[in-house]
C-alpha cells in the first residue's frame, strides 16, 4: 500500500508541477515570439499577460464540441486523450533531482523511447478518425516522420547509455556528475549526440522546422483540422508537454541533469530544461518549414549515418579510454 501511496503522491505531484510549468512555458513563448516579431504579446490578462493560457483554456472549454458526422467516433474522441497521456507518460522516469523521480526504472531510456514511439498512435487515430483528407495527409506525414526519426533518436540516446553503462536515467546523471557532463567530455561524442537527440526529438514531437504533419499553411491544420474546443486544446497541450519533457530528458542525458554547483539539483534541472525550451522556441519562430521529402532525406542521408558513427565511436571510447 505504501508503495502505491508513494507512487501516487509522486506521480500526482510531478504531473501537477509539469502542468503548471506549462503556464510559464506558454507565457514565455508568447512573450518571446512577440518580442522577436516587434510585437508586445498578451497584456490584458494581468499580471503581464501571465494568465493568457488559463484564459485560453477557459475559452476552449466553452466551445461547442463538434464531431463530424462520418468520423470514427471511438478513434476521434479518444485520440486527444491518448495524445496527452502519452506525452506526459515520459515524465515518469525523468530524474528532476536526486530524490524527485516518479519511477527510477532500470530501463528508463528504453521506456522513454517506447513511450515516444507510442506518440504516433494518437496522431494516426486522429488523422484516420476525422475522416478528413487534410487530416489523413497530415497523419500519413506524421507516421513517416515519426517512424523515420525514431532511428536517429534511438542512436543518439544510445551514446550516453553506452558511456554510462546503464539505461537508468539516474545512473546516467550520476555518471555525469562523477565524471563530466557529456557535452563537456567527451565533447566530440557528447555535443553531436546532443544535437542529434534534439533534432530527432523536435521531429518526433512535430515542432517547427519539422511540424509538417500539421503544416497549417498546407494542410489547414493537419490532424487537428476537425477538432474543436478542448479536444484541440489537448493536442495543443500534448505538443507543449512533449517539448518540455523532451528538454528535460535531453538535459538529463547530456547536460548533467540535476548536477550543478551551489544551488539544489531541482533548480539546475529547471534551469537547463528552461534554456532548452527557449532554444526550441527560438528556432521555431525564426525558421521556415521543410518539405516532407526533404525531411526524410535529412533523416536517412545524414542523421542516421551520423548516429551510427556516434554509437560506434562511443563503444570505441568506452573500450579504449573509458
Amino acid at each position, binding site marked *: 500500500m505504501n508503495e502505491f501511496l508513494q507512487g501516487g503522491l509522486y506521480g500526482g505531484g510531478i504531473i501537477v508541477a509539469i502542468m503548471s510549468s506549462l503556464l510559464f512555458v506558454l507565457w514565455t513563448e508568447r512573450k518571446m515570439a512577440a518580442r522577436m516579431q516587434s510585437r508586445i504579446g498578451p497584456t490584458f490578462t494581468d499580471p503581464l499577460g501571465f494568465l493568457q493560457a488559463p484564459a485560453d483554456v477557459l475559452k476552449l472549454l466553452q466551445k461547442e464540441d463538434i464531431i463530424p458526422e462520418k468520423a470514427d467516433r471511438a478513434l476521434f474522441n479518444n485520440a486527444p486523450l491518448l495524445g496527452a497521456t502519452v506525452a506526459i507518460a515520459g515524465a515518469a522516469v525523468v530524474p528532476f533531482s536526486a530524490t524527485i523521480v516518479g519511477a527510477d526504472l532500470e530501463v528508463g531510456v528504453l521506456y522513454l523511447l517506447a513511450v515516444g514511439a507510442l506518440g504516433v498512435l494518437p496522431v494516426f487515430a486522429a488523422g484516420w478518425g476525422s475522416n478528413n483528407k487534410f487530416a489523413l*495527409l497530415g497523419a500519413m506525414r506524421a507516421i513517416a516522420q515519426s517512424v523515420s526519426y525514431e532511428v536517429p533518436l534511438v542512436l543518439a540516446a544510445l551514446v550516453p547509455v553506452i558511456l554510462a553503462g546503464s539505461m537508468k536515467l539516474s545512473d546516467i546523471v550520476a555518471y555525469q556528475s562523477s565524471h563530466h557532463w557529456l557535452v563537456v567530455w567527451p565533447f566530440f561524442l557528447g555535443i553531436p549526440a546532443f544535437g542529434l537527440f534534439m533534432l530527432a526529438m523536435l521531429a518526433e514531437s512535430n515542432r517547427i*522546422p519539422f511540424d509538417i504533419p500539421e*503544416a497549417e499553411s498546407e494542410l489547414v491544420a493537419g490532424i487537428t483540422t476537425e477538432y474543436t474546443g478542448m479536444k484541440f486544446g489537448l493536442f495543443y497541450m500534448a505538443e507543449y508537454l512533449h517539448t518540455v519533457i523532451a528538454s528535460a530528458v535531453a538535459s538529463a542525458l547530456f547536460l548533467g541533469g540535476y548536477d550543478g554547483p551551489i544551488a539544489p539539483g531541482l533548480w539546475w534541472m529547471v534551469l537547463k530544461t528552461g534554456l532548452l525550451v527557449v532554444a526550441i522556441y527560438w528556432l521555431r519562430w525564426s525558421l*521556415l518549414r521543410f518539405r*516532407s521529402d526533404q525531411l526524410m532525406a535529412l533523416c536517412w542521408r545524414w542523421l542516421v549515418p551520423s548516429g551510427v558513427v556516434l554509437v560506434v565511436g562511443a563503444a570505441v571510447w568506452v573500450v579504449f579510454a573509458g
Partner: protein
Amino acid sequence: MTQLTVTAQKRPNPYLSIDSLDPESELMLLHFGPQHPSTHGVFRMDLYLDGEIIVKAVPHCGYLHRAVEKLCEKLSYVQLTPIVDKNDYVAPMTNEQAIVMACEAMLKLEVPRRARWMRALFAELQRIASHLLAIGTFCLDLGGALGGGSTAFIYCFRERELILDLFEDVTGARFHYNTHTIGGNRHDLPAGWGAKVKAVLDVIEARMPEYAALTIENRIFQQRTKNVGVLDGELALELGVTGPNLRASGIDHDLRRDAPFHAYDEVKVNVAVATGGDCYARSIVRVAEVKESLRLCRAFLDGMPEGPINSGKPTKLTVQTKIPAGQVYVGIETPRGELGTWLITDGTQNAYRLKIRPPSLHALSALPYILPGYTVSDAVAILGSLDPIMGEVDR
C-alpha cells in the same frame, strides 16, 4: 521598345487531360480552398493527388466576383476610381492610375508634369509596399502562421505600414486612396512630406539585408523554392503572364521601360531579370525590384517638378462629363504585371464597356501547367510565389 513575339506551341491541354482521368484510378481529389489559409483569398484548386504528388490541378476562381466591370458601366467616369481601388487591394494606387489614364487618353487631356511625377512616385512606393506583402505572405506560406514564416511576415508588414502612413499623409486614406482624378491628382504633397519619405526609404533600405537573410539567403527557403514550380519563358508568354513572374522566367519585359508612362521616360529604370523561372527566381526578382524601387523613389522625389497638379481646366470634371465615342487600351506596369484597361465609350456619361486585364489572372492560368509533379507543400509555395490577388482576379 522590345517586341515580344509569341509562338504558339503544341502543348497538351491540361484541362482536357483531366476529363480523361480514369474514374477507377486511385487518385484522391483534394479540394484545396476556397476556405484554406494559404490560397491568398478565396481561390480553389481541385488537386488530384497520387499520395502527395499532384497529378492534375484545376484552378477555380470567381469566389470573389463583385461585378466591378458591370458596375463601371453604370457609374460616371469620375466615380470609377474608388471602385477600381478595390480590385487589386494590395496596390490600389496603380489601379486608379490605369483607369484615369484610360479616360485621359480618350479625352486627350494633357496631364501636368508634376502630376505625372507624383503618380510615378506613388506607383513606386506602392510597388515596394506590394512586394513587401508578397514576400511576407510567401514566407507565411512556406513557414506557417505559427513559426518563422510569421516572423518574416510581420517584419515585412512593419515596413509596409510606414508606406501606408506616407500615403495617409497625402490622401487621408491608408488603403483606398481615391487620389487620382481624370487629368491629374486630387491631393498635393504636403509640406515636409519628401523628408518623411526619404526617412522611410532609408529605414527600408537598412532592413533589406534582414529580409534577405530571412528569405533568399536562408538555406531552408532555398531548398523549398529552388527548382520548384518552373515556369518556362515561352509558356509564360503564351499565357500572358507578366510582371515579376515573367521576368523571373528570363524574359526581359517591363512596361515601365518598354512603353513608358507617367515619368518613366525621364528616369532610367533598371529591370530585374532572373533565369530559372522557379519560385526562387520569382522571389529574387521581387527583392531586386524593391531595391530598384527604392532608388526610383529617391529619383522621383529629387526631381519632383513644381507646377499644377491638375490639367488646369477652368471647371473640374463632373458626374455629367461625357467622353466621345471610341475605344482605347492602356496598359501599365503594376507590381503584379501588366494591368490593362480597355475602355469602350459611346459618347454618353457612362462607359459602354470597361474590360480590366488583371495580371494575377494570367499568372494563375499557369497553375495547371506547372503544378503536376510537385507535392501539396510545393503547391502552396508555387501559388504564393505567383503572388495572386484574388480581388483583381475575380473583379
